[in-house]
Every structure is written in C-alpha cells, then in structure tokens.
C-alpha cells in the first residue's frame, strides 16, 4: 500500500447505500485508466456492492481498510 498514490479521494461518509457506490461510479467516469480512487464509506452495504461492482466493471480492488466508523476502499481504474 505504501507505494500506491491516491489520485482521487471520494469521501462518501454520511451517505447511505447506494450513495457511496454512485459516488465511486461518478469518479471512475471522470478519472483516467491507471488512476487510483479511494472511497470512504460508513454504510455497511458498501462492503457488498462496491467490491461486486469493481469486479464486474473489471477494475482492481487494491485494499479494503477498516477505520473507526468507516471503511476505505482503494480502487485502480483498469480500463
């Protein structure tokens, strides 16, 4: 993780499902291939829908980190 440079941070804390996923999809549309997006989400539903979408869309889930009160999803845009 140390060498991964976050290109864009999407702070979706306080947003209810499917808000964090929607915010991620919006960011993926705007970023370039190879960019790394970090999403903060306090919604438990994100633990299911973000990894599922990332897999279907062909991107890479680099890390899923737990913080106090929220989870951090680190995603690389692959295509």
């Amino acid at each position, binding site marked *: 993780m140390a060498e991964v440079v976050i290109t864009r941070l999407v702070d979706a804390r*306080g947003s*209810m499902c499917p808000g964090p*996923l*929607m915010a991620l999809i919006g960011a993926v549309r*705007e970023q370039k291939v190879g960019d790394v997006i970090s999403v903060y989400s306090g919604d438990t*539903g994100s633990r299911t*829908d973000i990894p*599922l979408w990332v897999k279907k869309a062909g991107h890479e889930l680099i890390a899923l980190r737990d913080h106090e009160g929220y989870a951090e999803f680190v995603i690389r845009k692959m295509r």
Partner: protein
Amino acid sequence: MKRVVVLGGGVGGTIVANLVAKKARDADVTLVDKTGKHVYQPGFVYVAFDGWDPKRLVRDERKLLRRRVKLLVDEVVRVDPKGKQVHLRSGTRLPYDYLVIATGARLAPQEIPGSEVAYHFYSVECALKLREALAKFGGGRIVITVGGVPYKCPPAPAESACLLDYYFSKRGIRDKVDIHYLSPLGRVFPLETVSPTVQKIFDAKSVRYTTFFNAERVDPEKKVVYSLEGEEVPYDLLIMIPPHHGAKFAKDSGLTDAGGWIPTDKYTLEVKGHEGAIWAIGDATDIPISKAGATAHYEAKVVGENVAAMVDGEAPIARYDGKVMCFCDAGFHRGIAMRFDYQHPPVPPPLSLKWYLGKVLVNRLYWTIVPKARA
C-alpha cells in the same frame, strides 16, 4: 427590512418564498427564475405514456406566489457570497441578507456519445418526442438505461418500464415488445428494502433487467448501447436518463463539489462555509437522498421556517430529518408508496389500488396545495 432572495421557481423555491413572505413581516422576498414558468415534473411520464396534454404541467410562476413576493424573470450568472449579491444575465446585481438556492439539476445528454438518438422524458418537449416514437413503435426491443448517477426521481426508470408494459398491453401488442431495464446499481431499484418488491413486479410483467449497467456510449448505426462495465445491449428504441449536473452558475461561483452539487448540511440545509447566509434545497444539493420534488417540498418547509425566524431575529431551530414520501405508478391502476427518512428506510406496502389513487390525488391537488405551502 431583511432582503431574502430565492433562486429557482420550482417546487422548493416557490414554497420557501411563500413561507417566508407569509411568516416574516420584515422580509423583502424576491424570487428569481429563468423562465417564469412552474413545471410539474412528475407529470412528464404521463405526457409520454398516457397522452396528457402538456398544458397540465405548466403554470405561470407569478400566479403561484404570494403578492408580497417579487418575481424577477432573469438568469443567474454568479453568486458573490462575500459581497452578498447575485449577478443576473440582465446586468442587475441583487443584494441579499439571506439567499436560498433551489435551482435544481440540469441535463447533459451530450456527455454520452451517440445518445442523440435516445429518448427520455425529463422535459415536456422530450416527453412529447418519446410519445410520438412510441405511437409509431410496432414491436421490438425497448431498452431503458441510465446515463449517469445521481439523477432526478430515482424510481422513474423502473416506473417507466411498468408504464411501458401497461401502454403496450392497452395497444394489444405487448407480446411483440421486449422491455429491458438496465439498472446502474446492483439491484433493480435504488432503495434496498423496496427492490425485492419491484423485482417481483418486473417478473410478473415479464420486464427483463440487467444490473450494474452504467451507459457509457451508444452506437446509433449498430443500435447498441455500451456500458462502463464492458457490456453491450442491442435496442430498437432506446430510452436513456441523461446525466445530471447542478446549475452552472453555482459551479462558476465556487459553491459546488466536483460533480456540480452544492455541499449542504443535511439537517440545517445551510451551504457549508456559508452558514447563516446561504441555504440550498432540492436537486441542487449534495445531500445523499433522492433528488425528487418530494424531497425539495419537505426541505423547503424547514428552510422557510428558519429563514423567517432569522428575519424576525429568532433562532432557526427547524431541522430536516430526511423525510421523503412518494408514490410510484406500476400500471394497471396499481401503485406502491414509499415513506422514509435518514433513520428509517422505506417499508414498501404491497402493490395496490390505494397507492395508485394516492398518486392520482397528488397529481390533481398539486397546484392547489403544494406550491402555496398548504401541505
């Protein structure tokens, strides 16, 4: 006199202006709207799928405002929060003590390459074009897709799939029409607790669906829509909910996030960084709840109360709890109702005539009750 300026003559802005004018005697209230026309947007689907006369959806904003509210038909170019004034297209500079931004969302279909061939029902004109296309449609694949999230009225695409089923059933050619809904999310309906109900409705109506399909581009010659996720779906008639953004002036004024939405406190509805001076409601905000008229309606009542209190030198104590109430028409005189807030997700009742009639009632009583803040 305190100068209260409201930007936008939709449901939210109209309610705020009327409430402040009613409750605060020392308020000088001005509402700015680009067209001076108030449009009842929930009626768009009925123009497209049920032959409604578009005149039913449009009224003069002036007739919906209390006499004390001044109406300026002009376009907002920029807000200057430091100078506390609004710059208008005509060159007018409008000073304010309290500003309420209720300018909704704008459509950006051009962001999806090839989508000029797609239809939608997010304006009177486009609903009419869709109606004409449907009237000529004799059979084939109708695909409903979403060009970007968030978009206004999250249930609308699923509702339109049901109304298409009803429309072609009435025409007696339902068996010749394949209705395929492409959901941008991992389920067929945005609200998790309601999605299983909608899925059952789709199954009963033979509406096909694909999840996690976010439209990226359209090939008009091949008649194929492609997704961000790498899938492709052929169509004969394409309905695409266009990408949405906040008003351009808000972005030009440095009031928005990257998506063009205004960062807003979800309880007080004050614009972050401009507390006590600027509020935002409805589609314009970044608050993660439905962009819908019902949301703007309930938010407007909170902001109207609080701005009126501040004009009168009182503390603004009203808070928005995330309340939204809406009805969905599933066709065949059946509907569902959803009521929820920040703490309580919706518990959908069964599909029933009662909730269809609820929608009919709102459609009929809207002009009498809602803009004038009687409910």
